[in-house]
């Protein structure tokens, strides 16, 4: 049975993420865990994240971090919101923090402009920049739910963008990693479809 580990480092929107995965799982086992041994045995990794990035990185303890980093070298991995941001090089939030440097790009404050509200909160369209298996059965320019104040503005790993004043990178992908700024677990049917695609994804 395929084991999906949802990494619990104390800061995620774990309930929603695991419920959404359970909703679409057929034979897969969804395990919310902070135990490095359990994570080691997982076939796929989900890295959620909510809140301030510094707290997330601090809560992501050394044990947990090293086993996660080892697994995401080749196991299919889905990172969400601050989970996505943690995989980049650095973030301006909390006075500037170094991140895990797995994907290309930096996190900056969403550029303020007259017609936009920050946080970027609500449903916005994602515009595909490239094809990906995880977009299966999801039409281009579909609405997904966002809530964040910091963002990535450019990355060579970008696979979709979303306009909120500036063009923000809404999804990044590289090899076995798929990372999204939006919350699929809060994006109703299309969000569930994305989780389904993740479960069906073989790298």
């Amino acid at each position: 049975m395929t084991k999906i580990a949802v990494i619990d480092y104390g800061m995620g929107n774990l309930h929603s993420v695991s419920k959404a995965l359970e909703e679409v799982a057929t034979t897969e086992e969804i395990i919310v865990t902070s135990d490095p041994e359990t994570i080691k045995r997982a076939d796929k990794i989900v890295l959620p994240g909510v809140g301030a990035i510094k707290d997330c990185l601090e809560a992501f303890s050394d044990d947990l971090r090293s086993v996660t980093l080892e697994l995401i070298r080749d196991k299919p991995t889905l990172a969400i919101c601050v989970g996505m941001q943690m995989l980049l090089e650095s973030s301006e939030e909390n006075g500037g923090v170094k991140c895990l440097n797995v994907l290309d790009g930096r996190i900056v404050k969403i550029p303020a402009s007259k017609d936009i509200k920050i946080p970027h909160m609500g449903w916005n369209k994602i515009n595909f920049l490239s094809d990906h298996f995880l977009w299966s059965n999801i039409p281009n320019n579909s609405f997904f739910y966002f809530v964040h104040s910091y963002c990535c503005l450019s990355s060579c790993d970008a696979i979709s963008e979303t306009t909120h004043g500036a063009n923000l990178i809404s999804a990044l992908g590289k090899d076995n990693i798929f990372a999204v700024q939006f919350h699929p677990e809060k994006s109703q049917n299309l969000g569930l479809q994305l989780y389904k695609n993740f479960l069906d994804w073989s790298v």
Partner: protein
Amino acid sequence: MTVAKRIIPCLDVDKGRVVKGVNFVNIQDAGDPVEIAKRYDDQGADELTMLDITASNETRETTYKTVESIAGQVFIPLTVGGGVRTTKDIKRLLRSGADKVSINTAAVNNPDFIKEAADKFGSQCIVVAVDAKATDETFSSWEVVTYGGRERTGINVIEWVNTVKEYGAGEILLTSMDRDGTKEGFDNKLTKSVSSSVSIPIIASGGVGTLQHLVDGIKKGGAEAVLAASIFHFSEFTVQEAKQAMLESGLEVRN
């Protein structure tokens, strides 16, 4: 293109049941929160808000269970408010499946609580509920009220929303206590004054009786989202009809 304007049905929950009353009197039972939440989700609601109107220690566990059941079946954002006083309350609600919490009286009594909560959980999940009441008969100046409008605080609403934004609130749920329960429409002058003075999103609330009222809250009030309870509970209108009305008036909505 930027974010779509949101429609947020609100569930007032008392001891595990959805209720609706006008100004906290004539409370009528409107049904099971999970069933109602699912119905709104099917109709295309963009988010849900659940307010625990009793918010006593005895009913707290019921609230967590309700949040858990809704969040387990409805995959759209859920804001929970009512009696949120400590970061422990917030943590428990978020762990139960709430995406945002709404703080009202506790923020007025101790603004530092907003800061503490935003630092710990991030601004994105901290909604500050502001209940406003006009201070004069021209309805051009408003003060913050607490305890369902019974207690006046003397705090100017515009100053207050700027304070809560500075302290880290991610969103403001703005309720006109003059309009709440009247079905006469939002106080759009109030909403406009607030939305044009802060950069964070405003949810307009209080007074919706028709679909045009929802449109006006956005077009005239400048709100990012509109919240309504009774027009949806008793199936006067569906969320779908509300979205259709917004679409026809030229507003961007998620369809």
